[in-house]
């Protein structure tokens, strides 16, 4: 089943001028996972989504949203 989550992680990352590797290290995941998230090929776990939100000082909904929305 294809992922049905959209993310604007790439935009947030670019505003912070972070590389994918740096963001991955900060969130405790691999660079490949950051790539998959940015390309909407992977649905993050709740834990990872919360870590993302915490890192960017925002809430989960502003980073991830359901495609149906």
């Amino acid at each position, binding site marked *: 089943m294809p992922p049905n989550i959209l993310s604007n992680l790439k935009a947030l990352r670019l505003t912070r001028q972070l590389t994918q590797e740096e963001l991955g290290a900060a969130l*405790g*995941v*691999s660079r*490949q*996972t950051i*790539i*998959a998230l940015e390309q909407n090929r992977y649905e*993050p776990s709740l*834990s*990872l989504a919360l870590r993302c939100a915490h890192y960017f000082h925002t809430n989960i909904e502003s980073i991830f949203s359901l495609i149906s929305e």
Partner: protein
Amino acid sequence: MFKHFLWFIRKPADERETALLSAAYQRALVVLWFGIIVIWFFARVAGESIISSQGIFILPLLLLLSILAGAWTLRDEELEYKNTKINRTPSLAAVALIAGLLFLAAVGLVYVNAGYLWIAAIGFTIAELALGAYATWRWTAGYTTHARLLGSLIFPFQTLGYLSTDNRKYRVSYMLLSSFWFLVAPIIIAVILLSLPSHTFVGYLQWDGYLVPGVFDSALKGNQVPASHRVILDYRDTDVAVGDIVQYNKMVNNIIDIGGNGEMHSGINESFGRVMATNGEDVTLDVSDGESQSVNSALADGVLLTEEHHTEVIPKSDIIATAIINAPGAALAEAILW
């Protein structure tokens, strides 16, 4: 598909890889079970003999298919490949120390009796394998448990060779070098052990172009047997003198009960004896078997070990090897050919 062929040795780097590898394991397991069911069904139809005759190929084939199924699941995914840092414990110094102790133990064993040479060499090999397995287990901490078990128990030296360099170009050479060293080390150890002073001494028979080692228990102990007396036995050397130890062909009769007929067969055994006298074409041999209780009394006069001597007269043409033992009191108890 082949870029993730070794997916099953990976430790997942994060939650995404955990999910991907779980899917791969799931697919592999499905293929494995499906294969088992198909083979079971096939065996029911074709007869179970197919399992016993082809079983050795079926299991690896099933495993290969399941691995390929897992790799197929991951074909569009990217996984994080990092050079796993080798955990360099135990230290090389510790490995060298253990290897040294093993070597000393082997030397000690052979010093007591050269007849233990093979036991020492096999023991050293087993210990070397155990050491390799332990080092591989410690050095592959970044891999999955089943990959570590596979590497440690079946391919320790190849795995160590593979991990000992970060340069991909040299990995295969290192693996070959490591494997070669594993094969050669016990032989080197055996050669060193053979050259050590011992309660026994070792000679070689030149036999059809091959050197065949023989162990001879001597009444002299340890370094009392000087190196000059560890003689090389020349095969087919019939130039014998009194006091020489000779190997000769001995005709023996064996009753072999084939089909209840009790037929008698003659054969030639290789035996050993010490030359007591030579007379033209004949040689009188002391063929005492060297009973241990007579060793001390026999040492005094420097001849064979038993007080009750058995002699045999053989033609010189039956002699196939001669050992010239000229150490004072170097009486031989027995000679054993490996």
